[in-house]
């Protein structure tokens, strides 16, 4: 933890909203990224990340300065997202509430690269959305936050052996899903050496 960060935390501890703003500036990307990968769209990710920071601010007194602040924040965000995923399963989703389809801006530079990135992103989301909420959180923390198994265990309040077995199962499930996806024919996609007229 940097000196500045320790100072911001100390000030935020004393109720300084402005100091907590610096902490948000610093941690918004990892928290948002976790929420995005957990929930699958930017609207829910924004809402979850905002709510996580509100909860962190309101319960700052519970923060143990001996633990890394990032782990504590990610723990709040991960648990909030897990709850949201579980709630979603119980709720009936109306068509109106679904996020509207994003129309690609054709004027952006390198539209093909952008399109490839979007396709990759959709593929990643389709793969990890098949995992159970806690397994998904473990995978996201492992792959996108480079967390060790101990850090994942601390973040998700699990034992290290539980994290290991969850990661094992998740990697197995992801690999099988990947193979299944490869077997499925991709509609509207021309195969190599195939006539464009077909």
């Amino acid at each position, binding site marked *: 933890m940097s000196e500045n960060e320790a100072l911001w935390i100390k000030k935020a501890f004393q109720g300084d909203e402005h100091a907590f703003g610096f902490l948000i500036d610093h941690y918004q990307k990892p928290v948002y990224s976790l929420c995005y990968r957990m929930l699958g769209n*930017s609207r829910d990710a924004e809402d979850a990340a*905002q709510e996580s920071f509100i909860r962190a601010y309101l319960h700052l007194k519970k923060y143990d300065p001996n633990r890394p602040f990032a782990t504590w924040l990610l723990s709040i965000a991960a648990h909030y997202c897990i709850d949201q995923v579980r709630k979603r399963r119980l709720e009936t989703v109306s068509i109106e509430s679904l996020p509207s389809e994003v129309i690609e801006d054709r004027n952006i530079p390198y539209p093909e690269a952008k399109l490839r990135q979007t396709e990759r992103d959709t593929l990643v989301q389709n793969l990890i959305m098949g995992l159970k909420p806690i397994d998904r959180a473990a995978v996201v923390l492992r792959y996108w936050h480079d967390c060790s198994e101990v850090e994942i265990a601390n973040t998700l309040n699990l034992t290290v052996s539980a994290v290991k077995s969850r990661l094992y199962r998740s990697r197995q499930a992801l690999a099988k899903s990947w193979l299944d996806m490869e077997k499925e024919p991709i509609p509207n996609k021309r195969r190599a050496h195939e006539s464009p007229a077909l």
Partner: protein
Amino acid sequence: MSHQPYETFLFSNETINAQQQQQLDRHLARCEPCSSLAAALTDLDELFTNSPAPDPAPGFTQRWQVRLSADHQKRQNRNLWLLTIGLFVLAWLIIVFILTYHLQYINLAYELSQLIARVSRFTAEVRSSLSLFRSLINTLPFMIPIMLVFGSGTLLALTALTLTWFSAIIKLYSPIQKRGKPA
């Protein structure tokens, strides 16, 4: 063909020694399902590494500050409601306690007759006051318009005060955005 311990080597993400690596390589060379899984894992690692999550939209901290103040207001309103309901329940509990405490020492029939007597005495007093008022009005007919103006003025003032009080109560309980304050 048994896929253990090779599947464990593949999925556990634990570092394996050189001998285990050799065994795994030999198994992958002759086992098609395991080699497919190994290739899939490599593809997944590559896919995940090259797919960073997007950044939040600019102004995240400002939006958080807006949300925090709205949240603070919401909690304040909720606490005010809880306090009001709590006080109301407490007042009723006190009333019920006082009534039950006193009822055991009270002769209910006697108290009821006393109450009826008091009410009838009060009604008689009101009636006599009204008749006195009526006779006063009859004796002073020129004062009637003045009294009408005075009476309706008082009524209007009382209505205005009541309306102001009601609007103040509604404003107090409504969320901050509805009041037009910057959230």
